């Protein structure tokens, strides 16, 4: 089962550790512009949303790419790029609704999240658990049981009658 970065924005405090961890790990520089994950700041309204590549299964960035450098890895299911072919035309950035493609001005190419080979740095650094690296099935299970818990209320009482 492929894992994904599941983002729970309710827990994000906007500390920016994920961005820094990502940038340092990928480029060796403490520069949040180089991060593949970005926190969308809604400071005045009191919430923060980390945004990154969603690893779509049929990614619009790949369809938009003028050089066909974006493809899906059949094994890991990740969206991968052949960086030497990238001409930095930014078409992928325009096609991606999720701010998933970021411009790496050191290499002059566009890059996206690659899950750090199955051990994402951002998840390791996240102090609040807003970022989790779990499978979609698991996140769906969690979501469903949270919903079920809400419906059943705190008492959690079963009221069914015997037939």
């Amino acid at each position: 089962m492929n894992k994904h970065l599941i983002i729970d924005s309710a827990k994000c405090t906007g500390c920016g550790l994920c961005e820094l961890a990502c940038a340092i790990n990928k480029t060796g520089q403490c520069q949040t512009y180089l991060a593949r994950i970005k926190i969308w700041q809604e400071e005045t309204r009191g919430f923060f949303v980390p945004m990154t590549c969603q690893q779509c299964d049929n990614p619009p960035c790949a369809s938009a790419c003028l050089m066909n450098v974006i493809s899906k890895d059949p094994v890991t299911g990740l969206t991968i790029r052949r960086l030497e072919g990238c001409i930095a035309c930014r078409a992928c950035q325009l096609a991606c609704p999720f701010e998933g493609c970021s411009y790496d001005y050191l290499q002059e190419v566009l890059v996206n999240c690659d899950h750090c080979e199955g051990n994402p740095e951002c998840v390791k650094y996240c102090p609040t658990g807003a970022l989790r690296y779990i499978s979609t099935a698991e996140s769906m299970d969690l979501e469903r049981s949270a919903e079920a818990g809400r419906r059943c209320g705190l008492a959690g009482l079963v009221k069914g009658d015997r037939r």
Partner: protein
Amino acid sequence: MKGEKNMSKSKGYAGQILEVNLSNQDSRYKELATEFCRDYLGGIGFNARIICDEMPAGIEALSPENILVFGVGTMVGSTFPTASRTEVSAKSPLTGLFGTSNSGMFFGTQLKNAGFDALVIKGKAEKPVYLFIEDGEISVCDATRLWGKDSWDTLDILKKQYPGAEVALIGPAGENLVRFACIENGYYDAWARTGLGAVMGSKNLKAIVVRGTQGITPHNVEELIKVSWKARKLIETSPFFKPFQSYGSMNAAMPYGSFKALNANNFSQGCLSDWKENFARPKVEELTHGHIACQSCIIACAHWVEIKEGKYQGLRMKDMEVTPTVSFGSGCGMSLEATVKAAEMGQRYGMDMVSVAGVMAMAIELFDRGIINQEDVGYDLAFGDDDAIFRLMDDIAHRQGLGAVLAEGTMRAAEQFAGGEASAMHVKGLEMPMIDPRGRWSTWTLGILTNIRGGDHLRCRNPIENLRFNENKYDFQKERFGYDQKMYDALDMPDELKAQAIDLETDTVDIAIMSRWAEDLINLFNSVGVCIRPPVEHRIGPTILAEAYTAFTGIKISPIELMQSAERAWNLIKLFNLREGEQPEDSKFPHRFYEQTVGGKMLDEAKVQEVLQQYYQARGWDMLTGKPGEEKLQELGLCNLT
């Protein structure tokens, strides 16, 4: 390996057996051959073959050589009603024979969805570990932080860590190698009998966490849906359906109680005098509500119990099964509310409730008889003394004081006390269940004797047992049929055999012949993973199961062949037991049943032996020794294991 499995292999099955050796953390994947599937079906059939093939003779049950097998029933994970059961087998530390137990809920579905029809565990881990199996991949994880925790606390941790997963685990009793420790299946269910939890504990294996997302492709979807509906309609029309849905297994205990055929105070009485007021229907109705179902079940015989007042106020769990209720309530003289508490403790500690109640009842009787005293125990024991019993339970689970002796099981513990044998109520080392064969002699009670796992009531049951008729005026060979022609016609049994087994004119059932049929039928159910609750066993026969099996797996099989596959597994287990040292004279009830009366009734040893011989004959076994005959083995394509 991931994802490929589903495409090629035979349908219906997940197609692989996973073998883990805990000693070197090595895992192997074995593909299932179609012939193997047809011959052994799944569940107990797979377990029997794997254990017979791979376990050396005469090993110690708690040694690393023992093999623990989780065999998922074939139909599990389909829409077939009540198909949820998984059989777990190993050499039993309690009986030294084939140890096996069956449980439902969702573990089997998850294991199959994770890509495996069976899980074989060998060797022993150096330090406590648990297994995590997900979609064809297995990892051995450190369980040091879980070791010593009771099973519910462990489950809370694991279920949080792995949402949506199913967990099989042991409690402190299994860790402490209590010989009747069970493997818990989630919070409220267990593979309880024959001490499989101790085997798991001896392997330093705390839990098995399974999560599967792959799914199983049936051979013929439409046919499967059709046969599922058909089976469902059949079950719903059984006269046992409604009562079972309403009262669960307690339903059976009610008539049995009123006819004094229940264990009371270590089988010294036929039934408690206040049984009807304190245990029967009105009380059950008062305490229980709602339903809980296993995978694909349409009966949902389990209910929620909520104790609203008294000493155990606030206790809330799935319970009021007949087994803990009678074993603790009647067998140890506890109140109905206290049995719920005892069941909770049994679940938390991970102990087989029949066995722990049996061994405690023996201890109390020995205390009464003065063979053990307060000094040995550390406190007074008495039937009906809840607190003392709970304390003793705690001692047994942790092997403290007298508990260390009792944790060895009734048979072994009795040997430690002079004259203890007289109070030890077991068959082949396995504690007797709640039915007293003296109260009512029937196919069911003969089954306790012929059972391949020892003194247990769950492997043989007349599919048309008539609970209304307690009084058995016939000699030991017959029981009353008690139904009309319609019921006779509806029974799914080969005509010839039906005519032999049931005599409509005298309204009787031949116990020996029916025993054999019932055992094979239940073995079939345990192979394909269908529940053996009476409404199911009553209506679902080999004909519809063969239809369902073919629709699901695409393997063509006739009802006769299906029954033969079930019989094959039964014979194989018998051969295994003989190899492990089972003696013909082991097949007998505790002396008390032949010597003391309850309700003015007593068993006649000679007559019981005669029925037993008739049963052997019906099986094609040697009449005196109970050894499967050459002819039978050849018919089944088995060769002698020894």
